[in-house]
């Protein structure tokens, strides 16, 4: 433990972090009917990790959310998004045609619902993963060994 004069910060942060996470999911799943959506939710979700890193140190944050996980999450997000499109193609529709996802008759809306939620989920993963990766890359940069130091 470094010192205690950050005690208040630590305690408050511990209280806030779960709330921020829940808020991220609120923005995510409320995006269908009101302002908000996966971009914003992804940023808010990434903020929890960044805040954690600021308060408890980068090493702690990297132990909680390893860099490979953040990068994998970003890649997974893109794959989910594109995968929905490819799935629609496999089902006989155009690329990203939600209507075709379940081969519904016209008037069915399950495909639209599932499609938009999956795509938003993909965006959430991609944005959150990318943001955390960017933060790690900039904050955790260890300088390369310079020529003079050899």
């Amino acid at each position, binding site marked *: 433990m470094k010192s205690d004069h950050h005690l208040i910060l630590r305690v408050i942060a511990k209280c806030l972090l779960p709330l921020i996470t829940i808020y991220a999911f609120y923005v995510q799943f409320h995006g269908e*009917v009101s302002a908000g959506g996966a971009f914003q939710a992804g940023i808010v979700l990434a903020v929890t990790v960044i805040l954690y890193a600021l308060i408890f140190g980068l090493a702690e944050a990297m132990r909680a959310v390893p860099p490979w996980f953040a990068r994998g999450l970003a890649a997974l997000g893109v794959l989910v998004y594109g995968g929905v499109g490819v799935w629609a193609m496999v089902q006989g529709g155009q690329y990203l045609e939600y209507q075709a996802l379940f081969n519904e008759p016209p008037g069915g*809306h399950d495909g639209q619902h599932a499609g938009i939620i999956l795509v938003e989920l993909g965006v959430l993963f991609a944005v959150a993963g990318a943001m955390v990766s960017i933060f790690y890359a*900039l904050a955790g940069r260890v300088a*390369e060994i310079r020529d003079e130091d050899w």
Partner: protein
Amino acid sequence: MWDIILERGSYWAIIGVMMIGLYIAFSAENLIKRLVGLSMFQTTICLFYVQLSNVANATAPILLPDDMPKGAYGAERVADLAHAYSNPLPHVLMLTAIVVGVATLSLGLALIVRINEAYATIEADEIRASDVEVQLAEDADAARTGGEVVI
């Protein structure tokens, strides 16, 4: 005359900020400042698009409760909305442009970190001076060894 100018006040403001950003992006020697100018420039584009989408006396393009779809999905409800809304399309476009801007900004910052590690400075003129020095040293080296490449 004044009417024409004042009516478009918001556009003038946008153009002003845009030019300030452009000027900074070109003239600043400090790389961070150039990036700041670039971000300002990109942000004013978002303002410009949002300004385009504005409709007189309209509200943000988020459906208010009065206009919520009643009954089954797909009912014809486009025709009679209780409120006027701004054009949502430019907002959506700018959401994309913002994401592009964030990507550019973070990539630029990452490059600056690397430049700082390689050159120990983030001033463009010092970087140029140091490049010229290296080039001169290499040329002198080549002249000394009679043009032989030392591998």
